[in-house]
C-alpha cells in the first residue's frame, strides 16, 4: 500500500511552502482513488492521485487511453456517472473539500466557479437549441440575469472568443457552425460566469490541426487575461507543451511524474515519460530510423497496485519494481517522480531497440518506379449528392469532394495524403480501391481500369489492393473470431484447402507480431493496437501489392502508434508493398511516406518528395500546416505560428480552394482563376498564384532539418 507520506506529490502546500513562498493552490487533489464497478467486478481508474494547481496556472494532465485522466476531470466536476465512484481522497477547491459538499452545492459551483470544455464540440452543443440560448443558460442560472441581459452578455462573450459576427452566431443552431466556431462557443459558455478554474478535457482533439492551433492560442490568451487556472487533460504532448506551465503524467491511474512542463518534456525522469516522449513522431527526426516504441499494453487494475504499474512494460525494470508499489520521490521544486531508479536513470534515454539498425536500403525500385507506376490517377473528380429529378426543386448540383486530382504511386512507394476533414483525402483513397465510382477521370491499377473491372464483376485486381481503416474495433465483426475474419478473404481468393488456410492465417498473424493463437480470439479480447495488427494481417491475406491506410494509426495512443508505423514500414521494406497513407498528421506521414500530397478542398496544393515538402518553397497551406505542428521543449525553437482564419464557407468555385483562408492571398486572381502549377526538376509541385521564387524566400519552419534528409530517397 502506498501510505508513505511522500506518496503525495511535492506540489502539496506543505512541501511547496518550505522551498518558496508560493500561493496556496486553487485546486488541490489528494489521494484521489476512483473505481468503476459493475456486475463483473471493479476496475480501479485512479489510485491515490494527487496534484495541485495554483491560481493562474495551467496544469497538463497527460496519459494514454485508460490512464484515468478524463475520469479524474469528471470526478472534480462530480459528473462521474456510469458506475464510477470516488472511494477516497480529497478534492480541495479554494480550501473547501468538494467531496464534503452536498450534490446541490457542487452543481451550483459547476458552470459558475468551475467551468468545463469537453473534447468534441460537434456533439457538446444541443442540436435543438440555438447557440446563444445555450451560452446564456449558466448566466441565467448562476448569475440571475434576465434572458434579455444574458443575450447582451452572450454577444460580448462571443466577440471575446474571436467570433466576428456574434449576433448571427448567437441566433444560429449548432449545425450551422464549423467545428472551430462550435468550440469557441463552448469556450464562451465556460467563460460566462467568470470561473476561477477551467476543466479542459481534450478540447482540441477533434479539431483540424490549423483550427486546433487557433483554439490553443485563444485558450492561452484567455487564461492569461482572466488569470484563470486550468486543468488541461490531453494525450498530446505538443499541445501540453504550448499551454501548460506544469504537467502531471498518469499511467494506469497512477501519477508517475509531475513537474514543470519544460523539464518533464525535455528531461523526463520516469521511464514511462521517457518512452512517451521518445515515441512521438517528429518531423525533424531521421526518418531512416524506426520510431522508438513502448512494448505491451496498459494493465487493468482491480485494486491498489501491488507493484510498479509500469514494470511489465519497463525496459529498466528489476525484481524490486515487480514486488512492491513505488512511492512518489519529490524534490523541493515541485517535481516528483514515482520511480526508485529515477536518479540512477537520469541520463539514460529510452532504449531504441534498433538504434543502429537503419531501415534496409531499398534497392532497384527507383528505376522501376519511373518506368511503370502501380497506380495512376488521372484527372479524378468526385461529386457527392448530385441528383436529377423530375421535380425541379429536387435537382441538385452536388458537393465536389475531389476536383481534378492527378498523381501516380510507384511500386514499393509510400505516398502520403495530408489534409483536414473535408479535404477529400478519404474519397481519393476510396476511388483508388474502386469503392466509389469517380464522377470523371480514371484510376489505372497496374495499367488496367480498376473501376471498370470491378463493374464487370472481375475481382482479381481488387484482391491486389486492400484497405486498413482508422477505427480498429469497428472494422472487425464482433461476432467473428480473428481467424474467421481473416479466413474470408482467403476463401474468396479461391484457397480451398482449410488446413492450408489455417497455416496461412497463423503465418500472417506471426508476420504482424501477434501470437498465432490469436486466431481463436474475438476482437473485444484484443487491445486497440492488437486489433489494428489484425486488420493489417487481414489486408495482407490476399497478398496485395497496394494498401490504402486511411488514418490507420490516428486513433491509437502514441506508444502504440509508433509500433504500428514501424510494422507498416517493415512490411513495405520486406514485401515491397505500396501504400497510400492518408492522415491529418503531417508528422506521422513524414515518418513513413516517400512522397506527400497536401490536399485542400479536394485539390492537390502541393506534391513532392517528403524532404522537399518539409522545406521551402512551401504552399501557403503547407506552411500553415507545418507551423501548427506542436513541438516539445528541447526539440528546437518554435517557429512563428501562422494562424488561419476559421473557414467561413466551404471551398469551391473557380479559384484556388484555399483562397478564403490563405494568409498570403494576392487578391481577386486567387478567387477567380485556378492556380498555376509550379514544378521543379525533382518532382516538387506547388499550385499557387504566388511565383515560386517568392514562395522560396520564406524561412524554413524546421530550419534544423538536415540537408541530407532533404534529398529524395
Amino acid at each position, binding site marked *: 500500500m502506498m501510505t508513505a507520506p511522500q506518496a503525495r506529490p511535492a506540489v502539496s502546500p506543505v512541501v511547496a511552502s518550505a522551498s518558496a513562498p508560493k500561493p496556496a493552490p486553487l485546486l488541490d487533489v489528494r489521494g484521489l482513488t476512483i473505481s468503476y464497478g459493475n456486475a463483473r467486478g471493479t476496475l480501479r481508474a485512479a489510485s491515490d492521485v494527487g496534484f495541485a494547481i495554483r491560481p493562474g496556472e495551467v496544469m497538463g494532465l497527460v496519459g494514454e487511453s485508460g490512464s484515468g485522466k478524463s475520469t479524474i476531470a469528471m470526478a472534480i*466536476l462530480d*459528473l462521474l456517472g456510469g458506475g464510477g465512484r470516488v472511494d477516497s481522497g480529497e478534492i480541495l477547491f479554494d480550501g473547501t473539500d468538494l467531496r464534503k459538499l452536498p450534490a446541490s452545492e457542487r*452543481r*451550483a*459551483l*459547476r*458552470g*459558475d466557479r468551475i*467551468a*468545463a470544455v*469537453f*473534447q*468534441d464540440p460537434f*456533439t*457538446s*452543443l*444541443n*442540436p*435543438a*437549441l440555438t447557440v446563444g440560448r445555450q451560452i446564456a*443558460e*449558466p448566466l441565467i*442560472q*448562476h448569475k440571475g440575469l434576465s434572458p434579455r441581459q444574458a443575450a447582451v452578455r452572450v454577444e460580448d462573450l462571443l466577440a471575446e472568443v474571436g467570433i466576428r459576427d456574434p449576433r448571427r452566431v448567437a441566433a444560429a*443552431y449548432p*449545425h*450551422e457552425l464549423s467545428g472551430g466556431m462550435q468550440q469557441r462557443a*463552448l469556450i464562451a*459558455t465556460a467563460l460566462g460566469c467568470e470561473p476561477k478554474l477551467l*476543466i479542459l478535457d481534450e478540447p482540441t482533439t477533434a479539431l483540424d490541426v490549423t483550427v486546433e492551433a487557433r483554439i490553443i492560442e485563444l485558450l492561452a490568451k484567455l487564461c492569461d487575461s482572466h488569470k484563470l487556472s486550468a486543468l488541461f487533460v490531453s494525450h498530446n504532448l505538443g499541445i501540453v507543451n504550448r499551454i501548460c506551465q506544469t504537467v502531471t503524467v498518469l499511467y494506469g491511474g497512477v501519477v508517475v511524474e509531475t513537474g514543470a512542463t519544460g523539464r518533464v518534456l525535455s528531461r523526463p525522469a520516469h521511464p514511462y515519460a521517457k518512452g512517451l516522449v521518445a515515441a512521438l513522431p517528429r518531423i525533424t527526426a531521421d526518418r531512416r530510423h524506426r520510431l522508438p516504441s513502448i512494448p505491451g499494453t496498459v494493465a487493468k487494475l482491480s485494486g491498489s497496485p501491488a507493484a510498479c504499474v509500469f514494470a511489465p512494460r519497463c525496459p529498466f525494470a528489476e525484481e524490486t519494481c515487480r514486488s512492491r508499489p513505488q512511492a512518489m520521490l519529490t524534490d523541493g521544486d515541485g517535481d516528483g517522480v514515482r520511480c526508485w531508479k529515477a536518479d540512477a536513470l537520469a541520463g539514460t534515454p529510452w532504449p531504441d531497440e534498433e538504434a543502429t539498425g537503419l531501415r534496409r536500403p531499398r534497392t532497384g525500385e527507383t528505376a522501376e518506379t519511373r518506368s511503370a507506376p502501380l497506380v495512376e490517377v488521372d484527372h479524378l473528380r468526385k461529386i457527392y449528392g448530385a441528383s436529377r429529378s423530375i*421535380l425541379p*426543386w*429536387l435537382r*441538385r448540383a452536388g458537393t465536389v469532394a475531389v476536383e481534378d486530382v492527378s498523381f501516380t504511386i510507384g511500386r514499393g512507394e509510400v505516398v502520403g495524403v495530408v489534409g483536414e476533414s473535408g479535404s477529400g483525402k478519404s474519397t481519393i483513397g476510396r476511388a483508388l480501391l474502386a469503392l466509389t465510382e469517380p464522377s470523371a477521370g480514371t484510376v489505372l491499377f497496374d495499367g488496367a481500369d480498376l473501376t471498370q473491372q470491378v463493374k464487370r464483376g472481375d475481382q482479381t485486381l481488387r484482391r491486389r489492393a486492400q484497405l486498413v481503416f482508422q477505427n480498429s474495433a469497428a472494422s472487425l465483426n464482433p461476432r467473428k473470431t480473428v481467424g474467421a475474419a481473416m479466413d474470408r478473404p482467403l476463401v474468396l481468393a479461391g484457397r480451398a484447402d482449410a488446413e492450408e488456410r489455417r497455416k496461412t492465417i497463423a503465418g500472417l498473424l506471426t508476420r504482424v507480431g501477434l501470437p498465432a493463437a490469436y486466431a481463436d480470439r474475438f476482437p473485444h479480447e484484443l487491445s486497440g493496437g492488437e486489433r489494428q495488427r489484425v486488420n493489417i494481417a487481414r489486408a495482407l491475406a490476399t497478398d496485395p501489392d497496394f494498401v490504402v491506410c486511411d488514418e490507420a494509426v490516428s486513433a491509437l495512443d502514441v506508444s502504440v502508434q509508433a509500433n504500428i508505423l514501424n510494422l507498416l514500414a517493415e512490411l513495405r521494406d520486406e514485401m515491397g508493398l505500396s501504400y497510400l497513407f492518408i492522415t491529418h498528421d503531417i508528422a506521422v506521414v513524414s515518418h513513413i511516406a516517400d512522397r506527400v500530397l497536401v490536399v485542400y478542398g479536394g485539390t492537390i496544393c502541393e506534391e513532392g518528395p517528403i524532404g522537399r515538402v518539409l522545406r521551402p518553397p512551401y504552399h501557403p497551406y503547407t506552411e500553415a500546416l507545418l507551423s501548427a505542428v506542436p513541438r516539445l521543449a528541447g526539440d528546437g525553437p518554435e517557429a512563428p505560428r501562422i494562424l488561419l482564419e476559421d473557414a467561413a464557407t466551404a471551398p469551391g468555385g473557380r479559384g484556388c480552394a484555399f483562397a478564403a483562408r490563405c494568409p498570403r492571398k494576392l487578391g481577386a486572381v486567387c478567387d477567380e482563376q485556378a492556380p498555376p502549377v509550379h514544378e521543379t526538376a525533382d518532382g516538387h509541385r506547388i499550385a499557387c498564384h504566388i511565383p515560386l521564387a517568392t514562395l522560396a524566400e520564406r524561412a524554413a519552419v524546421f530550419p534544423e532539418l538536415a540537408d541530407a534528409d532533404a534529398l529524395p530517397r
Partner: protein
Amino acid sequence: MLAYTLTRLVYLALVLAVMSVLVFLVTQAMPGDVASMIAGQFASKEVVDAIAVKLGLDQPLIVQYGHWAAGILRGDLGRSLVLEQPIAPILLEALGRSLVLAVVALAVVAVVGIGLGVLAAVRRGKLTDQLVSGVSYLGIAVPDFFWAIVLVLVFGSYLKLLPTGGYAPITDGFLPWASHLVLPVVTLVLMLLARIARLTRSSMIDVLQTNYVKFARAKGMPESVVILRHALKNALLPTITVLAIDFGLILGGVVVIETIFSYPGMGRLLLFAIQRHDLPLIQATILIVSAAYCLANLTADLLYAFVNPKIRHGMRAS
C-alpha cells in the same frame, strides 16, 4: 420547408393513385357478382344483366376505373349499393367518430407513455424502471380484445359505471359522449402505451448519454432542466413517428375494438361493407383509410422537422 412539403404532397398523390388502382382491382377480384347479389338469389339472368348494365359493370375494367376515379376527383365517392345512399356523408360520419377516438386515445398515450418512458429512463435499472417495463409489457403481451372484454365485464356488467358499447354524439351532452368513449379509449391506450413508453425510454437513455447532456450538467443546470429542455426534445423524435403511425392506425379503424364496443367508426363501416359485398363502399372506405394513413405520416415528418432544426434547415436548403 415549403419545397419539402410540396415534394411530400406529390409523393402522397402518387401513392394514392397507385392505391386507387390496387383497391379497384382487388375488389373486382373478390368472389361474388355484385349484380346478382343486388338482384337477389332467384332473379333471372335478364334482370341480373339489366342491373349490370345499369351499374356499368358490362364495360371494360379500365373504363369502369376511369368513371370511378373521375368521380372521386370530383368529390363524388359513389352510392352505396346496400344502403342506397351517397357514400360521402356515411364515410365522413364514421371518419369523424374514428377521429374522436384517435385524438383522445393518442393524447392519453402520448402524455402517459412519454411520461412513463422518461421516468423509466431517468430511474434506469431502479424499481420504477422495472415497474414501468413490467406493466407496459403486460399491456403489449395480452391481446387487445382480452382487455376489452375484461373492461366490459368489470365496468359495464359488474360495476355498471359505464356503457359497454355504442356511441352518443356530443349534441346529446358531454357526459353521455364521454362515457361511451372511456372503455374503447382505455383499451386502445393499453394496447399502444407499452410501445411508446419503451421507445421513449430507450431513446431518452441514448440522449442522456450524449455529450450535450453532459455539457448541460457541467454548466450546472438543474436536473429538471437537463431532462426536460436538453434531453426530451431530442429524445422525442422516434416517438413522434410511432405516434403518427398509431394515429393513422386508429383513424383507419380498429375493427376488433370497434366491434366489441359497437363503436360506429371506420373499422365497423369497412367490416359492414365487406360482409354485404357493397363494392363502392369498400373501395371508398379503403381509399379514405389509405389517405388518412399517408396524411398522418406526412404530419409526423413535418413535426419531426419542427422539432429537429437540422432537418428544418436541410429542407430550406433544398
